[in-house]
């Protein structure tokens, strides 16, 4: 579904991502892990169009999306969330979800001006759509609150809800569990699984929470210093001496092997 080939980006002399080839298959949950500064978020930025690669290509659903602007890529069905809490702060939760439906609303300019069929139907649909997504993510009771006033965990969830509102085929989640307490993390895991199983979306996530990664991922890839170390099933990857070395240093890798 998503295929990155020999993807590289350099900032001056710094090789942030170097020659990484990675594929995500339809219907799986794939995780990208690696120590801090390994280039995981940079890789997401390259794939979602927020950065242009210096070399390599990205293919999504059989079309070349290398270097396209983010809004185009989102329009093709690849939507990402951000590592920092990225939300529309000064609107209510319901209004903010409405914005997320941008890609699903098609009313033309004159249709809008004349209150035509498409735009009236659209404005009716939105109510139902947002209800669905808000209940799916457990935000329904918060819908009338200003986004900046709801708890942090709910804001993180809202960021995912916003991405879901765009109905992506492939959802990129950048560290969704950051700052969540254990209960919220458990909720998040359930929702990610539901996204795959009920919404039939493919999920590609970056995460540091190993418990979450190992228990829900179908496959893992490991980045270190901008290069791909390995990829495979969670059980295999977590035993790989190179991975242990990358996280814990050389001494531990001997101990582990």
């Amino acid at each position: 579904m998503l295929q990155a080939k020999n993807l590289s980006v350099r900032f001056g002399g710094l090789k942030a991502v170097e020659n990484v080839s990675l594929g995500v298959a339809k219907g799986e949950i794939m995780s990208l892990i690696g120590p801090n500064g390994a280039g995981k978020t940079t890789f997401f930025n390259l794939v979602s169009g927020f950065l242009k690669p210096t070399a390599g290509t990205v293919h999504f659903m059989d079309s070349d999306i290398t270097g396209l602007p983010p809004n185009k890529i989102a329009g093709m069905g690849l939507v990402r969330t951000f590592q920092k809490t990225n939300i529309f702060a000064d609107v209510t939760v319901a209004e903010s979800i409405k914005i997320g439906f941008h890609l699903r609303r098609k009313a033309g300019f004159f249709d809008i001006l004349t209150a035509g069929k498409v735009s009236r139907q659209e404005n009716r649909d939105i109510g139902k759509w947002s209800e669905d997504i808000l209940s799916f993510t457990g935000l329904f009771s918060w819908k009338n609150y200003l986004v900046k006033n709801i708890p942090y965990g709910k804001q993180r969830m809202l960021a995912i809800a916003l991405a879901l509102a765009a109905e992506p085929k492939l959802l990129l989640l950048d560290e969704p569990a950051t700052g969540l307490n254990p209960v919220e993390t458990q909720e998040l895991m359930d929702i990610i699984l539901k996204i795959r199983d009920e919404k039939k979306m493919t999920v590609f996530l970056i995460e540091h929470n190993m418990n979450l990664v190992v228990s829900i991922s179908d496959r893992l890839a490991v980045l270190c210093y901008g290069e791909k170390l390995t990829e495979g099933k969670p059980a295999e990857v977590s035993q790989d001496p190179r991975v242990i070395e990358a996280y814990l240093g050389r001494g531990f890798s001997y101990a582990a092997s």
Partner: protein
Amino acid sequence: MNRFLRGLFAVLIAAALYGLPRLFTMDYYLHIFVMSEIYAVLALSLGLIVGFAGQVSMGHAAFYGMGAYVSAILGTRWGWPFWITFWIGGIFSGVVSYGIGRLVLRLRGHVLAITTAFFGVLVMVVMNNWISLTNGPMGITGIPRPTPIEAGSVRLVFESRIHYYYLGLFFVAGVLYVLYRLTNSRLGDAMVAVRENEELAKSLGVNAMKSKVFAFTAGGFIAGLAGSFYAHYILFISPVTFTMNESINMLVMVIFGGMSTLFGPILGAVSLTILPEFLRMAGEMRLVIYGFALILFIVWLPMGVWGTLKNRLFSGKA
């Protein structure tokens, strides 16, 4: 509010607006009312750019002025009727603001504000110096009034201020309707998305640049229409009407009334057109009091009068 109450409310407002000039019949009052209407349209159009799309423009008077000049020149040189030059003035401003928007909207915040302000100055310089076209600082005189509308036995003339008042009501209502439709559509939501968080908006598929340029173009177009209306009402225009002061004045109306609402700019425009007139009795102190009042309002009600009221009354979650 249910349907009946809402209908009743609308009828009451319409009746009040209809009866207003019968109550205050002096020309002086009527002039203030008509100017309030023109400023309401200007503030609404600027509100779309500043309030909804979040792009601060300090050169809005340029688009107002261009609409006025284009309409006035066509009317005085070639005798084109107001009903055509009105639209041409708007379209001209809209086209120019599209071009300028494409250029300057990649800038943000203060830099954008300063750049648009300079554009306003530039247009002023052209108005002052392209004498063969604009008659320079002397301005354009003898702008024709709108020609009467004749439909069967009905004949609508536009000769006194009260006629302009009623024409202006239709103008404001039309602009309000268009903006209401726009801001309650995907186009309006895209603007809010860009205002709130451009990066996130892009990740959700919003073409941020297109959205900003659209707001700027629509705002410029409507300001151009207002300029044309003004020119054919005052019947004389000169560059001094379209200074940066005027741009700032519009911006203050939007902020005072409440950004990102539709009623806010109208409230701001009407109260800030009428308020200075009340302060005339204070003589020399007028502008000092006015300035202080504005500062206090902005400190205490940063969301504007209507923005604050709306939050208190309807959501209770401010």
